[in-house]
């Protein structure tokens, strides 16, 4: 075989005497570059055998084992000579072919023939046909229009999808959370609960926010006059509470002078 002359084909479209690779010549000549393609083209030994049978018009029902084995071995030899990594299945199939061939060479006792002993090729035939059936089915399946590939599904936006990511909480949830906390705490300490505590806490937060800049503010500026007397009292208690917790600093530089309040040194975190 004159291999060196026959390397003109590009990797993907190898032509031998103008014929594409897939129309492989009967003499089994394979250009070296094409071997890898052969391995890629054939999905296993059954596929290769089917190709040989169909391409060479061999009779499936009466497979000429000698010829088929010889052709198959031709491919295997060529692949091995080129040290292409050959899947073990190809070698197993070679052994199967040779075994069938040798069994056919042995004369079969007449008794066995009468008893309907299977033709040694029967199993191979069954496998070949079953594989071919599935191979054709795969082609047909692939031809069916596929969602995403051959047609798109209609999907109009529902805005909610974007919006609803965050859990919703209502007042009742918060109440339940607090309630369950109290239940737990109650087991340990007696919890003193006072109604006005909340508004004092709220005013503490409000005052602290107002003082966040870190500068002194006039004491009276911390009050919301419009809130009524109750509000003023609560705010006053809140400021005292803040002072107790060392959250604010209260100063008066002279008697009866202005009182100034500012957040404790490090409270201006931002």
């Amino acid at each position: 075989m004159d291999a060196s002359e026959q390397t003109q084909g590009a990797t993907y479209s190898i032509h031998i005497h103008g014929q594409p690779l897939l129309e492989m010549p009967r003499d089994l000549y394979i250009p070296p570059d094409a071997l890898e393609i052969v391995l890629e083209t054939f999905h296993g030994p059954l596929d290769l055998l089917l190709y040989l049978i169909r391409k060479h018009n061999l009779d499936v029902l009466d497979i000429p084992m000698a010829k088929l084995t010889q052709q198959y071995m031709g491919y295997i030899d060529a692949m091995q000579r080129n040290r292409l990594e050959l899947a073990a299945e190809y070698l197993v199939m070679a052994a199967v072919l040779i075994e069938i061939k040798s069994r056919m060479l042995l004369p079969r006792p007449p008794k066995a023939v009468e008893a309907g002993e299977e033709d040694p090729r029967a199993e191979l035939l069954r496998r070949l046909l079953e594989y071919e059936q599935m191979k054709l089915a795969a082609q047909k399946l692939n031809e069916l229009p596929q969602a995403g590939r051959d047609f798109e599904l209609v999907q109009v936006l529902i805005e909610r999808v974007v919006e609803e990511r965050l859990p919703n909480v209502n007042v009742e949830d918060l109440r339940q959370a607090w309630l369950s906390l109290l239940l737990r705490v109650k087991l340990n300490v007696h919890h003193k609960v006072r109604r006005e505590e909340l508004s004092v806490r709220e005013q503490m937060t409000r005052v602290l926010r107002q003082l966040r800049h870190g500068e002194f503010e006039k004491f009276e500026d911390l009050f919301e006059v419009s809130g009524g007397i109750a509000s003023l009292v609560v705010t006053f208690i809140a400021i005292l509470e803040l002072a107790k917790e060392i959250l604010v600093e209260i100063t008066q530089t002279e008697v009866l002078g202005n009182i100034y309040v500012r957040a404790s040194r490090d409270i201006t975190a931002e």
Partner: protein
Amino acid sequence: MSGQVETLPLSEEVVEQVDLTQLKKILKVALLTTAEPLSLSELKKLSDTPIENSVVEGLLKQLAEEHAGSGVELGHVASGWRLRACPEMQPYLDRLNPQKPPRYSRAVMETLAIIAYRQPVTRGDIEEIRGVAVSSQILRTLETRGWIDVIGTRDTPGKPTLYATTKGLLDDLNLRSLQELPSLDEMSNLLEQDNA
């Protein structure tokens, strides 16, 4: 007379509650917003009052007719009803989405065919038919696509996993049942090829 007076408002109320025009509109919007097929029982939830299957099916038929020629069609697939763009619109849609999903390799398609036509099968069964090892990658590709599923194990040594195809495969191929898959070539036809 009094009987008539009593029943009349009742039946009027029923007619009023099942406003078919409104229900058809709701069905349409539901189908437009859902890429997954909607089953009849899901579609029935869209009615404010209990409703017969036949009424919903009637409305679906009307919707299917109204969509004729619009480039979008209402189809009945394995898991229910859904709207899809007609395949002839695909060349235009591809202009917007130049990244087409890759075509599956022959190995993947052959594995899928074996599972589809011979299910439930084990990996060993697939390997026997194909004559080569089946990589985990191939099975994973099909599982990730939602086309095959593990449905159990075979009660033989090693307890091999049994694979079957899903409704999702039928949906994606626009089919209603496995019987709508392309029919297998008869063995006898395969044999006759020789004689030709």
